């Protein structure tokens, strides 16, 4: 195949990026733009989770904690001392990475269900702490970021387009990072750890080091999305940004698309998020949780019938067609 097929593929990607980047110039419906923004945001989060959950095979159910740290760090710094969220976002990311190093060191030697438990317990404890220490976090009342005027230097925009481009860029970066991880030795090490941790250890891979590293990178980028969320929605509270439900949404998207693959989380996001947004708008507040009800059902169906996700189904389908055409 060689050069020709590769450059064709690159051309196709560039075309896709151009199409997606030009959407705001003709799509003037604010609600549809909002759906696109949320879709990108969750695809991005699923892509970040994928580094730990997919490639390294460590089922973290605590990613809401990193998301919440990002949201609260930049918002508290902005409200407290007027620091621009553009710097706050990096501080939030670094704090989340440090937190990940701490809990990763504690928990990553745990196997299977006990690692999952530890991540849920950590995230829930953090949520309770944020609800409890009201002097700093305002507890369940949450924090409101006032939107007075367009202020690009303070990460505040009155229209949706700038947010669209920011989150789109973030998604592209996360895909690029996934590509880099896949091709680097870290990617191979993580794969080896997922397939057989003991075997990986025995051939000299520092299992704990690479697992913690993956968790730290994932936490850093997940926290960036937290800041984005806070700026975009202008309001955060622990019961929005640190819940187990949020973590479950993220992993469902990754699993449905296909965990441990480059495009799986993106496909999962593009399929599931518009559906859940549609349910949210048509069923409204009276049926809060309708989309999660469906997420739960979808997880069960996928695990029993298609453990490799939509991407797995697509590639099997593709192989069947290829075989027929040959």
């Amino acid at each position, binding site marked *: 195949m060689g050069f020709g097929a590769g450059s064709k593929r690159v051309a196709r990607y560039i075309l896709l990026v151009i199409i997606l980047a030009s959407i705001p110039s003709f799509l003037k419906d604010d609600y549809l733009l909002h759906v696109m923004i949320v879709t990108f945001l969750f695809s991005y989060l699923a892509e970040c989770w994928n580094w730990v959950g997919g490639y390294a095979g460590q089922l973290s159910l605590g990613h809401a904690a990193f998301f919440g740290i990002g949201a609260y760090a930049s918002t508290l710094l902005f409200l407290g001392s007027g620091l621009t969220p553009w710097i706050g976002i990096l501080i939030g990311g670094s704090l989340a990475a440090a937190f990940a190093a701490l809990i990763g060191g*504690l928990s990553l030697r745990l196997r299977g269900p006990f690692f999952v438990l530890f991540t849920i317990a950590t995230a829930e404890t953090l949520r309770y702490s944020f609800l409890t220490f009201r002097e700093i976090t305002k507890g369940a009342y949450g924090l409101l970021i006032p939107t007075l005027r367009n202020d690009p230097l303070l990460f505040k925009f009155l229209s949706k387009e700038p947010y669209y481009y920011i989150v789109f860029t973030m998604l592209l970066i996360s895909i690029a990072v996934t590509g880099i991880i896949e091709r680097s030795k870290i990617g191979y090490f993580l794969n080896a750890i997922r397939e057989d941790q003991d075997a990986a250890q025995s051939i000299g891979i520092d299992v704990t080091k690479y697992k913690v590293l993956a968790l730290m990178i994932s936490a850093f980028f997940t926290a960036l999305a937290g800041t984005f969320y806070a700026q975009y929605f202008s309001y955060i509270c622990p019961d929005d940004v640190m819940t187990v439900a949020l973590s479950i949404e993220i992993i469902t998207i990754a699993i449905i698309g296909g965990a441990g693959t480059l495009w799986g989380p993106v496909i999962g996001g593009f399929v599931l998020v518009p559906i859940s947004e549609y349910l949210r708008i048509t069923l409204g507040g009276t*049926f*809060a949780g309708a989309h*999660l*009800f469906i997420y739960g*059902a979808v997880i*069960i169906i996928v695990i029993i019938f298609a453990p490799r996700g939509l991407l797995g189904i697509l590639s099997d389908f593709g192989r069947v067609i290829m075989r027929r055409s040959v």
Partner: protein
Amino acid sequence: MDPTIVLQSIVNGLLIGGIYALISMGLTLIYGIMGIVNFAHGEYLMLGMYSTYWLFAIFGLDPYISIALVTPLLFVIGAATQKFLIKPVLEASHFNQILLTIGLSTLLLNGALLAWTSDYRTVITAYATRAIEIFNVRIGIAHLSAFITAMLTAFAFYIFMSRTDTGKMLRAAAQNRDAASLMGVNVHKMYTIAFGISASFTGVAGAILMPIYYAFPAVGLDFVLTSFVVVVLGGLKSFRGALVGGLIIGLAESLGGTFAATEYNKLITFIIFATILLIRPQGLFKKM
């Protein structure tokens, strides 16, 4: 500090710890026999509490009478889970097994939210506010009877496991699946029974909790996270461990609430959890 307050706190902690122990024994049973951690266990408890609530709201049944109906109902739900959902993934990776039970938990929790809204439901009984007093320590009748019922259930289960043939077959399946199978034990049937019993513990717990607690869709999460800590503390596969662990965690929460503030309950439980994982990840007890 007034010794009466400490004594009161100890009594309260032990009473609630008994219920933690009962819920935790259900988790221990599934983990011990099948090596699966059931993340939907808390949602079984939620279903047990709602069933008790509806039996009260519609038929006026006392929660302690409802035990006779809720327990078999939960047994059926648990057995059906094993037959239709767990069995297909028995040979799959841990990763997929965990995801499956998380999916079930999400489905049940949000199904309850859709069906019954997020309103808090309570059962009002005449004995809920009554208490006896010994040495200035007040013991709520509802709390005491919940504790006694939990302990009787645990004791009945102990007799079942040690004296009956089915109990012996369950233990055999736990020790070695293949060997048990070769000895003529129908392992899949044992798994179904184990799941049924595990869920029916939450049926009993749900019923006895209703006079002293309230039902809402996410109620399971709080209890199940505590129970997971209990199970890890107790040594994962040990029923004695679950019992002792439940009482310890109940005590720790209650004393922590008295000396610090009730709000720190979760933090205390988490600190215990992190400490066990660091110092003694194998827990207190080894044997089943």
